[in-house]
């Protein structure tokens, strides 16, 4: 990573108008334990560097010593905001490697629940992003909405945040009795609430002046850095894994992909809001079409994928979550590598921030929607 030159001697500190500001790891708005080292001229950022690794748990190394089904709970703790999506990428990778025939009901339930998780994750992003820019009330409103989803998760998975949602081959158990009713109720209430949140922000002069033209990244740069998810689509690049390489039941769903035009913070904000609406559409369709049947495939006693290199990715709330798996044919993976969307999106921070003010750094960290659990793994 790029290194910030730090003036250390007293002379250089006094001579230069520049100041090095250490933001984090204990800072209210770095979304966890991100440390950003800023070089400031007044309040203008002239350079910055990110220091990561404070939450490193060695997930990928741990995975090498676990059998395939035992790895899934670790994956839930990568991006703990979106445990359901993270779990999905692991089980789908193994399922596809093994060539398992996952029943359609499992696919549909996976679609519904990952989309609910996407909404929950985006709501938490909205809450914290608005909080970073100073709109405190949106935080509580968005969390209230997220609570409805977490209630569904709690009844379905038994956990609210780190849901161990899937098993290789399907779901551990069928949807609970009132599942469809609960989801339908959420789906019918949600648009009205979202509109309400939008009125607080989208037309607000202060919100506009804080987000329009802030953290602009062009489509070329976004592709070059490897951004994915809303951060990429905010720059107008039409790339969505759900469309490009449909997994679960997405091939049967009709939904649009929102694309930004300016690549700034406000566009990414609008894109995420629209994604929530599209997710709601997907959930609606999936609940309507939800087939009957078993929710799990027949599994061999021990899961031993054939030797080889495999890569599978899904569209997580933050971007493309990939899983690169090297199997040596044994019951343990030889090597697992996660493609962490937050880590790669974070690479854009320096380019987005330079020339902006300190306050914008916070807004840009918010708009990138990073989760340190996934960056540090």
């Amino acid at each position, binding site marked *: 990573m790029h290194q910030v030159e730090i003036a250390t001697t007293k002379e250089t500190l006094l001579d230069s108008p520049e100041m090095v500001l250490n933001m984090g790891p204990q800072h209210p*708005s770095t979304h966890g334990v991100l440390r950003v080292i800023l070089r400031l001229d007044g309040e203008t950022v002239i350079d910055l560097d990110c220091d990561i690794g404070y939450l490193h748990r060695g997930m990928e190394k741990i995975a090498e010593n676990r059998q395939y089904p035992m790895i899934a709970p670790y994956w839930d703790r990568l991006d703990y905001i979106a445990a359901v999506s993270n779990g999905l990428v692991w089980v789908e990778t193994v399922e596809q490697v093994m060539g398992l025939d996952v029943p359609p009901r499992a696919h549909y339930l996976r679609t519904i629940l990952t989309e609910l998780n996407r909404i929950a994750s985006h709501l938490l992003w909205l809450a914290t992003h608005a909080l970073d820019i100073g709109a*405190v009330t949106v935080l509580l*409103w968005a969390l209230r909405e997220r609570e409805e989803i977490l209630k569904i998760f709690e009844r379905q998975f038994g956990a609210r945040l780190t849901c161990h949602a899937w098993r290789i081959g399907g779901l551990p158990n069928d949807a609970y009795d009132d599942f469809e009713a609960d989801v339908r109720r959420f789906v019918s209430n949600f648009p009205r609430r979202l509109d309400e949140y939008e009125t607080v922000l989208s037309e607000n002069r*202060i919100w506009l002046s804080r987000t329009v033209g802030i953290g602009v990244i062009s489509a070329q740069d976004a592709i070059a850095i490897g951004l994915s998810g809303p951060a990429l689509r905010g720059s107008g690049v039409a790339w969505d894994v759900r469309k490009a390489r449909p997994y679960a039941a997405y091939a049967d769903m009709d939904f649009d992909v929102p694309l930004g035009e300016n690549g700034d913070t406000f566009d990414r904000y609008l894109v995420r809001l629209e994604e929530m609406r599209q997710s709601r559409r997907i959930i609606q369709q999936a609940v309507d079409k939800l087939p009957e049947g078993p929710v799990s495939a027949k599994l061999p006693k021990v899961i031993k994928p054939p030797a*080889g290199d495999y890569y599978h990715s899904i569209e997580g709330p933050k971007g493309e979550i990939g899983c690169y798996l090297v199997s040596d044919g044994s019951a343990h993976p030889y090597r697992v590598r996660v493609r962490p969307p937050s880590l790669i999106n974070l690479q854009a921070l320096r380019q987005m921030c330079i020339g902006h003010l300190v*306050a914008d750094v916070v807004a840009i960290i918010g708009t990138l929607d990073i989760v340190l659990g996934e960056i540090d793994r």
Partner: protein
Amino acid sequence: MSISFFSLLLSPVNFIGDLLLKLGLSHDAVNSVVWPLIQISIVVLVVTLWVAYATYLERKISAFMQARLGPMRVGPWGLLQPIADGLKLLTKEDFIPEDADRWIFFFAPYIAVVAAFIVFSVVPFGPDWAVITDVNIGLLFVIAVSSVGVLALILAGWSSNSKYALLGGLRSSAQMVSYEVSMGLALIGGLMFARTLSLSGIVAAQASDAVWYLVYQPAGFLIFLISGIAENNRAPFDLPEAESELVAGFHTEYSGFRWSLFFMAEYAAMVVVSAVATTLYLGGWYFPFVHKLETGGFHNLYVLVSALIFVTKMAVILYLYFWLRWTLPRFRYDQLMDIGWKWLIPAALINIVFTGFSVFVVQALDGWGSLRTIESMSQGLNLTATGKLIMIGLGIIGLFITGGFLSLVNGRSRDFNLKSQRRNIRLVNLPSGTPAVASTKETAPTEA
């Protein structure tokens, strides 16, 4: 016995005065020493409680806005929460960072709190005995003293030996200095009607004219209120303590009771601004028909009711503070300066010119044909009903003229109309690709 008890209830003031005289104090001593001391202690007590309960109110109001309950545990509906908080802060460790400038760090909170509280000595809470002192340059005194508060913030930021505190201190100095200007300029419009700087005099002028200057000065009121909120470092202008950027700004390194002094100073400063706004624009303690109590012979009741009216009006403005804080996002530093220098100061200047012009017009119209606009000029500008109507009309026109002029001046700036400058996002229905395949044996992806 029963009569003296009754008089204690209705006229506690006279009773105490008589008691003191009976104790052998001279009339002079009672009037110029004992009595002001009693007033001061009452005001300090009331304001401190008011500040403490303002935090409670803020927490409750924000809670109701955010679909939650707020403090509920300490006392019924959490009513004892501010007291519990105060006790907790009192008993916390008095921590001073190692490399801090000890004495400045030590004294900065006191400067803040004194600067905020001293203003209450001239605030007219009510007529007669509900004023500690009436200085004939009252308004200047308020502005002068309350701007000392900025010193505390700069010193606190500087002495903490922390970069966040330093940035907070720098921001606060720039912010308070800029907004002080527009705040002072906004007041001038109102003064043209009151024709006095004495705060009691301003209220008396409004009472004798039976009007609140808000209706003559809508533009001035708005400018004053916005500058006041900004000068108090309250959201959406709470940059010096912007918690998401600067952790806690100038008071990052403060804790315990010293921190709570800053907090008290902030709330007291809010009360000051709302008191000045109430005095100048909302008629102070004046409310129609209340003076009938005075003519009915209940003097002390009249003073008490008037003081209650004053506090109620202040509470309305305080509510506005809370409302804004929990609704709006925060400005950025440069945008804040833009608003101060490019919007509020020009607006205040136009307001002065236009108010002067309106006063001139109303005066010139007096005696034009059978038109009578001015009743008297002895205590402020007293207008007849026609004069009032004309002045209200001119005030509204002034609002539009100010708005129009500002749009003209700032129309070409980037922030003026952000929404129309940009293209919106679009929705595309991408064609669905081939389903994800399992193996990519031949094309091993590169490590990110």
